[in-house]
């Protein structure tokens, strides 16, 4: 269908008279694709730059304004065998890129400083044991100060600014003892150096910064990677709408629609925006919005919601974004309420920090007072107290959780689970109750042929291949069974009835019962639709319905085996939920629930002290996802829902839910082990420090040793199963 495409929404001026656009490219399989794509796009007149980023599968194109229409780029890609999806980079993603560069620069500076200072420190330690002259030692100390002070001022900014923010808000986080430790260690070392002292702690302070920055940079890189994948998926899923401009039909991205636009919604497409029907009659599948699988008949004047699937006829509609549909309003109101209630959940790291930071400060203060009362000089008492601060500086503690998070999110990524929220792993690991939505979560998002085994395979293949020629949703569902992707040559479609073709001299018809000359089929199971196929004298009635995800039964069994309490809360009718619940052996299920009722159920469970994991995909699930302790969504979910979920899982299988819980609870165990390890390290090291027996060498060994231990322990979380 040659239809003009308007992509001006995505083209942004680059400043030098050219326009730029970013595309997520699908179909890149190997390195050769880079050259193929870039040279194909560069051959277009006016294109000044085409650069493919192979890591995140994105193409950036610059062209002289007016030389080509952006749609030509998509067409060129299409001709080369790839699909391009334009997208506007999210502001959050750009901010994260800036932050990542800042962290990497800090890391580089800290790494440089740590290596050089350690070189000087080792010389001093060796010299102290042998015959270093005080002058040489002072020179080495001053050289260390020259490197450490500017390096720490630069590389420590991420910690200093966080600590400052926390202090101003009257709170303590892990960055407060870190900043205090670094600043005091450097300050004391500078004073000691001026006094020609034997020991200085520059290496400890800078090494601490380096280790912490490694953890933070890793954490950031992993989050950016999952964000990029999520961004590409969003672009791939972005819907286009057919807008009337005068009498002409123009294809525009759904994001570029305005209230009052007149649109055409073809059968088999999703409604791109909320609005009212101007003309046409059709049936809408609103399962993504309400969970209800029975279709709703709509005609002129009816209100329709974005995300509904148009089943039978073409509709013209008017967009009414200005006064939002009551359903969306209700859902947004619930969302806001649920999200504000959730922020009470505290992260493990913060909990540890709240307990740990005052302890550190108190211990250091007591050490100072103790030594002073015991008759030590003011100088010695201060030096010992600072040594306590340095040794307790939560190097291992601050790495303990991020290191596990990085490794676990990598494992989740490989299992097909993409995290939206950084602390989701901890909360996932705590879940003891799982609530599933039915439609699109336990079942596949798209309907499928059921009882396929009961149909003659040859006949089914023929029907499926014939179905390739139709856009009707039932035909699309049937076509998924086809082994071949090549439609039959001459196929005639009778709008609203079916398709027919002559195969091997015999007529074949696929469509409604009347079209195939059948008596109308009796209503079967609830939620089931029928499509008929005749080939000469042979005939079949094919049932199409929501089908369970292929591994749903095993996954549910495995979840129960882990001791989790399972529930189904669905917006669908009770008699559609019952068979699914029985199949899976889930006894606690409820149907016909409104969004607010789902929240009420979750709140009731939370009141019993349960940690609820909500798995859902519909718009009606979004508030429930926000209310739950932690939430998962399949990638096919409604936009609002996907944005609300803590993590999104890919693919047709339900297994990622099980993997996510398994990886997360393992990660939680590792986090606790690491925290315990850090505590034990402190129990050993702190008495030595209080006794005043810490030398810079011991501090350096303890710090790097404990960091190494927690990192190695965290790596165990990445092993398969």
């Amino acid at each position: 269908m040659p239809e003009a495409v308007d992509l001006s929404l995505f083209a942004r001026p680059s400043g030098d008279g050219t326009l730029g656009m970013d595309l997520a490219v699908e179909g890149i399989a190997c390195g050769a694709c880079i050259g193929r794509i870039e040279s194909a796009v560069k051959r277009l007149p006016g294109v000044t730059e085409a650069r493919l980023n192979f890591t995140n599968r994105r193409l950036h194109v610059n062209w002289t304004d007016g030389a080509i229409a952006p749609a030509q780029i998509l067409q060129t890609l299409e001709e080369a065998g790839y699909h391009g999806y334009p997208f506007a980079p999210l502001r959050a993603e750009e901010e994260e890129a800036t932050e990542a560069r800042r962290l990497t620069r800090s890391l580089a500076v800290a790494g440089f400083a740590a290596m050089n200072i350690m070189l000087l420190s080792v010389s001093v330690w060796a010299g102290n044991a042998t015959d270093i002259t005080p002058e040489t030692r002072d020179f080495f100390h001053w050289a260390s100060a020259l490197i450490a002070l500017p390096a720490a001022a630069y590389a420590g900014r991420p910690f200093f600014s966080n600590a400052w923010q926390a202090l101003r808000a009257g709170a303590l986080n892990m960055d407060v003892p870190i900043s205090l430790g670094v600043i005091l260690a450097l300050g004391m070392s500078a004073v000691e150096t001026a006094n020609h002292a034997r020991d200085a702690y520059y290496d400890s302070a800078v090494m601490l910064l380096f280790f912490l920055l490694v953890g933070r940079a890793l954490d950031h890189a992993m989050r950016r990677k999952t964000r990029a994948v999520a961004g590409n998926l969003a672009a791939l899923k972005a819907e286009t709408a057919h807008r009337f401009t005068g009498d002409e039909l123009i294809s525009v991205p759904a994001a570029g629609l305005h209230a009052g636009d007149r649109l055409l919604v073809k059968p088999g497409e999703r409604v791109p925006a909320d609005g009212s029907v101007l003309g046409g009659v059709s049936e809408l599948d609103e399962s993504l919005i309400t969970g209800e699988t029975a279709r709703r008949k709509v005609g002129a004047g009816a209100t329709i919601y974005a995300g509904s699937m148009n089943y039978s006829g073409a509709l013209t509609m008017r967009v009414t974004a200005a006064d939002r549909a009551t359903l969306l309003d209700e859902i947004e109101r619930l969302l806001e309420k649920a999200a504000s209630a959730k922020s009470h959940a505290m992260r493990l790291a913060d909990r540890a920090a709240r307990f740990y930071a005052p302890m550190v400060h108190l211990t250091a203060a007591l050490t100072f007072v103790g030594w002073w009362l015991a008759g030590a000089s003011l100088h010695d008492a201060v030096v010992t107290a600072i040594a306590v601060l340095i040794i307790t500086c939560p190097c291992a503690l601050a790495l303990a959780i991020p290191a596990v998070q990085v490794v676990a999110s990598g494992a989740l990524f490989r299992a097909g689970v993409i995290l939206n929220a950084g602390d989701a792993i901890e909360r996932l690991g705590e879940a003891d109750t799982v609530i599933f939505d039915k439609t699109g979560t336990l079942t596949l998002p798209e309907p499928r042929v059921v009882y396929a085994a009961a149909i003659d395979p040859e006949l089914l293949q023929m029907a499926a291949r014939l179905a390739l020629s139709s856009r009707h949703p039932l035909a699309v569902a049937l076509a998924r069974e086809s082994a071949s992707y090549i439609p039959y040559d001459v196929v005639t479609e009778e709008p609203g009835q079916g398709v027919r073709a002559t195969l091997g001299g015999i007529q074949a018809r696929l469509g409604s019962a009347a079209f195939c000359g059948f008596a109308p089929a009796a209503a079967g199971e609830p939620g089931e639709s029928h499509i008929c196929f005749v080939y000469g004298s042979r005939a079949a009635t094919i049932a199409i319905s929501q089908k369970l995800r292929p591994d749903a039964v095993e996954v549910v069994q495995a979840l129960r085996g882990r001791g989790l309490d399972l529930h189904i809360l669905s917006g669908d009718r009770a008699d559609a939920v019952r068979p699914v619940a029985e199949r899976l052996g889930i006894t606690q299920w409820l149907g016909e629930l409104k969004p607010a009722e789902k929240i009420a159920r979750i709140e009731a469970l939370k009141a019993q002290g349960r940690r609820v994991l909500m798995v859902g995909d519909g718009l009606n699930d979004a508030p429930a996802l926000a209310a739950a302790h932690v939430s998962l969504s399949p990638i096919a979910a409604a936009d609002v829902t996907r944005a609300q979920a803590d993590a999104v899982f890919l693919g047709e299988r339900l297994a990622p839910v099980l993997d996510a819980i398994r990886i997360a609870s393992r990660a939680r165990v590792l986090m606790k082990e690491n925290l315990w390890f850090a505590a034990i390290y402190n129990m050993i090291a702190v008495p030595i420090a209080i006794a005043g027996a810490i030398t810079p060498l011991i501090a350096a060994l303890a710090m790097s040793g404990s960091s190494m231990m927690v990192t190695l322990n965290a790596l165990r979380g990445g092993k398969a199963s």
Partner: protein
Amino acid sequence: MNVLVYLIPMALGLGLLGLFGFLWALRSGQYSDVDGAALRVLSDDDIEPPKPAP
């Protein structure tokens, strides 16, 4: 040991050179597509194709 007075600044200078090299590479986007860079080196885009590719 007076030799240290200029050897150590020299060593630091060389280290700084490496640091600035890294920062420059970071700023010029050489780390933005690490997977792609590994593959680009294999492409023969500097060799003129005999005829325009289809």
